[in-house]
């Protein structure tokens, strides 16, 4: 400010207050800078809104689309068939129980014979595997035209013989065989040649032994055998009628879908023609539109053909129920084993309910109307409370949300139950008891877990944890654990363990912060009252920090529910509501999850289809869940805030 050079010195006040700012387009640059940063700050808000907008844009059409699909499902008569077909599915479960009971009973007599036969065949296969190469060479040599010199074949034969002898020797023979039998098996295996098509004599004897035992067992449990057969065959006449109706309904549905596709195409062409200015183009478009005219399907007539047979169907259902009940009455009280007897009793108890259900379904057939409209509320209900998620089905796609939600929730619960004690204990220990050196080991390592990518943990679940859990579940002294031995390597428990591991760092750090924030005065007061360290920790510090710990658990829950790759790789991906009748052992069943289904299926569906929209709906629900969990965590943190000392 060269105020001294100006001829007349301006008053000091105006110099001080003179604006030295230049402006850009009439704006103060300082303000502009501030607005620039402010607008960047609002990016977080904008992104949240955009996420909502884009999820909505792709997903919001789901309800009307699904409504249309369900409407077709009803009008074409598929729903009519499902009234009977759904309860009939129960038959399969029941007859599989019976089959299990039967085979368990038969095994009481024939198990040894069967095991001996199977073991012998397995040993034979092992020998064949081990001698595969010389055998192949020999076979090739034998098939060659002209045949090679006999001495050459002899060499190959000798090679095979040697290989077979050594292979037969190196086998581990189970205790099922006596020493003499072992020797005989060894001899027979060593003598195996490609030409011999007959089974070696001992194997034949073993097969005969088994079939004799099996016959004996079947005569002993003849009542069970016939009951099981009757039960299984009972569906056949009913199924026949039903299959006819189903084929008819499906044909109607396909025609309706085709008509709809042609119709939309026609309308689009007409619209394009209306917009088109070029006369020639317009004519060709209109012509094309006219060509795509399709015959509308007379749903009413076609469904009438189905409903006409209601009486026949009911008659069959009645017959079926009668046969089934008769089979239930014929089921013997006794079975080979305790487990089998329990299974039979369960089936006997279930059959009346099943028969009742079938009759009730038959009674409902009359009330069914093909033209009853599908209300939007029932569509919402079908999505949020539907128990089936079936896609790419030749019959009908269902988008029911419950199986996915239960899978997600059970896995999250397992993870939280495991992770909470571990991380809270670790937080308490590091915060209150650990020496500085211990802290320097524990904290970075636990925080390092956060840096492990989730796909790596998922891979660990497949390659390491799955086998580990399976092996452990086969230990004999752990058989009291429900669900052991487990069937599937990839299951909800496995996924839960890995997610717990992932959630530990979040929960650990936040809990530790919460403990750190407990006012010093609380601890001093407790010490002054003569409390021991343990008393101070558990009666003063932990209760004071409980709000932080709870919100840490909630945030961990949010992380667990939203995790994708681990559940996609490890949870087993079976889309069904886990079978809670198995008790606590249900955690060892496979399941599918909200996040996993998106990751797995979105890549394979075409844009705008109902499946695509359904997946975006799932995304909307996930987004809502994450917001809810966050809100709860904040609310908890506020609610239990300790009074600041």
């Amino acid at each position, binding site marked *: 400010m060269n105020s001294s050079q100006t001829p007349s010195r301006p008053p000091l006040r105006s110099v001080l207050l003179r604006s030295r700012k230049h402006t850009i387009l009439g704006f103060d640059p300082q303000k502009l800078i501030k607005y620039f940063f402010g607008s960047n*700050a609002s990016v*977080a808000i904008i992104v949240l809104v955009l996420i909502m907008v884009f999820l909505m844009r792709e997903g919001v059409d789901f309800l009307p689309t699904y409504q249309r699909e369900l409407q077709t499902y009803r009008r074409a008569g598929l729903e009519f068939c499902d009234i009977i077909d759904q309860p009939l599915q129960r038959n399969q479960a029941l007859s599989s129980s019976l089959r299990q009971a039967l085979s368990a009973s038969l095994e009481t007599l024939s198990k040894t014979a069967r095991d001996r036969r199977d073991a012998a065949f397995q040993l034979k296969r092992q020998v064949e595997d081990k001698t595969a190469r010389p055998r192949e060479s020999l076979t090739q040599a034998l098939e060659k035209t002209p045949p090679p010199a006999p001495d050459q074949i002899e060499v190959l034969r000798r090679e095979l013989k040697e290989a077979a002898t050594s292979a037969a020797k190196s086998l581990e023979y189970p205790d099922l065989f006596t020493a003499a039998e072992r020797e005989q098996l060894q001899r027979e295996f060593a003598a195996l040649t490609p030409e011999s098509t007959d089974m070696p004599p001992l194997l034949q004897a073993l097969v005969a032994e088994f079939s004799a035992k099996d016959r004996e067992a079947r005569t002993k449990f003849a009542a069970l055998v016939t009951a099981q057969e009757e039960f299984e065959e009972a569906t056949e006449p009913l199924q026949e009628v039903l299959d006819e109706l189903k084929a008819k309904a499906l044909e109607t549905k396909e025609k309706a879908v085709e008509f709809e596709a042609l119709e939309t195409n026609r309308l689009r062409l007409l619209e394009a023609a209306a917009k088109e200015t070029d006369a020639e183009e317009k004519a060709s478009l209109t012509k094309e539109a006219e060509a795509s005219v399709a015959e509308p399907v007379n749903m009413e007539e076609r469904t009438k053909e189905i409903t006409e047979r209601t009486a026949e169907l009911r008659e069959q259902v009645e017959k079926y129920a009668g046969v089934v009940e008769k089979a239930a009455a014929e089921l013997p009280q006794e079975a080979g084993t305790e487990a089998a007897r329990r299974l039979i009793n369960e089936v006997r108890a279930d059959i009346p309910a099943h028969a009742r259900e079938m009759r009730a379904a038959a009674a409902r057939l009359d009330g069914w109307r093909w033209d009853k409209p599908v209300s939007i509320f029932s569509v919402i209900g079908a999505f949020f409370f539907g128990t089936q998620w079936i896609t790419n089905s030749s019959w009908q796609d269902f988008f029911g949300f419950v199986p996915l939600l239960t899978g997600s929730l059970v896995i999250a619960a397992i993870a939280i139950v495991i992770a909470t004690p*571990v991380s809270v204990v670790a937080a308490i*220990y590091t915060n209150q008891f650990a020496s500085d050196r211990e802290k320097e080991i524990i904290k970075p390592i636990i925080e390092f877990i956060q840096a492990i990518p989730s796909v790596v943990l998922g891979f660990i679940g497949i390659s390491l944890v799955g086998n580990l859990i399976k092996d452990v579940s086969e230990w004999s002294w752990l058989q009291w654990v429900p669900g052991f031995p487990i069937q599937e390597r990839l299951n909800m428990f496995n996924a839960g363990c890995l997610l717990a591991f992932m959630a530990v760092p979040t929960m650990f750090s936040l809990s530790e912060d919460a403990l750190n924030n407990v006012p010093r005065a609380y601890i001093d007061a407790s010490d002054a009252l003569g409390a021991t360290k343990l008393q101070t920790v558990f009666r003063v510090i932990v209760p004071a920090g409980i709000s932080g710990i709870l919100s840490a658990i909630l945030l961990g829950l949010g992380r667990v529910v939203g995790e994708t790759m681990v559940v996609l790789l490890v949870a087993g991906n079976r889309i069904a509501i886990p079978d809670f009748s198995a008790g606590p052992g249900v955690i060892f069943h496979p399941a599918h999850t909200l996040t996993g289904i998106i990751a797995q299926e979105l890549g394979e569906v075409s844009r705008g289809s109902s499946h695509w929209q359904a997946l975006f709906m799932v995304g909307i629900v996930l987004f809502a869940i994450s917001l809810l969990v966050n809100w709860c965590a904040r609310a908890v943190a506020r609610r239990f805030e300790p009074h600041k000392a």
Partner: protein
Amino acid sequence: MTPSPSNDNPFAGDNSGIQKRETAARWALRVGSYIVVLITLAIMLHIFTKGAPVAFQSKWPFVNTKFLTELPATLHVIEDQQGNHIETDVNGADAIKKQLGDNFRAEKTISYSGGGILGPIIGTALLVIVSVGVALFLGVACAIYLSEYAKHGKFLEMVRLAILNLAGVPSVVFGLFGLGAFVLTAPKFVSVVAERSVLAIPLGFTTLSFEGWDTCVLSGGFTLAFVILPVIITASEQCLQAVPQGFRETSMALGATRWQTIRYSVLPFATPGILTSSILGIARAAGETAPIMFTAALAFKDKLPWQKDMPPLPVDASIFAHWEQSVSRFLGIFTESVQALPYHIYTLAAKIPQNEYAERAQYGSVFVFLVLVASLAASSVMLRKRLRAKYRW
């Protein structure tokens, strides 16, 4: 009360029971915390013992260069009559079969398990560069506002709430968002407007059409940027807050404007910290799979992003034509979909049948991936420690 030696406190009660309980509880807590540590170490050890033999070798140069410098390929395993297994690729298979002649017995092909993992590494690097670039720009600006400009009020509260919530959004939802926003809707200059375009603004020489970028590095990078944005904002704000208030007051007292204060007396001291913490963001971006599944990643690609077929230029092409082609080749890197390491691991783990050859590729990729991510995370921690020691106000 048992008689105690005279030098003890005569008023003290018998504490031995309490002390025992105290020690027991302490040990229980200690065991609980070390379980987590041990599990972590066990997992690391498992990956190391299985993966290191793939990535390293006992001969010079000790690193398995083939694994690190080749693209993934289908592995062909040829067995001869003697039971030897020969591993080769598509091109080698026929030659070896011819050479073996009658000796040939069987051939197995294992997808994705041959060659190396250069493609995925490059792809991940590109994604990280784009995402960290975008996230640093937005995140640091946001942090500057929060730390230097914002006053308590509705807006500030909303921003903080939004950041918190953004941090909690599941990564697969970010994937859906990226698919809807960047792959299908983002604006793009085109000459012919696609049918799916939401809005097309003619600009004379070209058209700005909201038709999306397709699956490519840009879409994936932007999606990842929003995934790591909360991390970057929080870390940067902490670094800005750590600069003592006195620096700002001094600067303001000397008559500097707010921007000058930020530019000359806050940012220089906060930048090292911001950059260090953003390394954590890099590690996170490199590790995410779900957001790039639908926006950028491919299961298989036999070319690097810049190996694109271009029409050969005429011999007498001007320097300008060459220049133009190089530029379009460079830009093409970002508009191609790529392989990425996490997605490659997912493919290897879930999409192909498991056997020894697939297992080798799996553990090798996991090992390399983990080493990259872990070294990033570790370097961030170490640098932060150093910085703390250096700037102590």
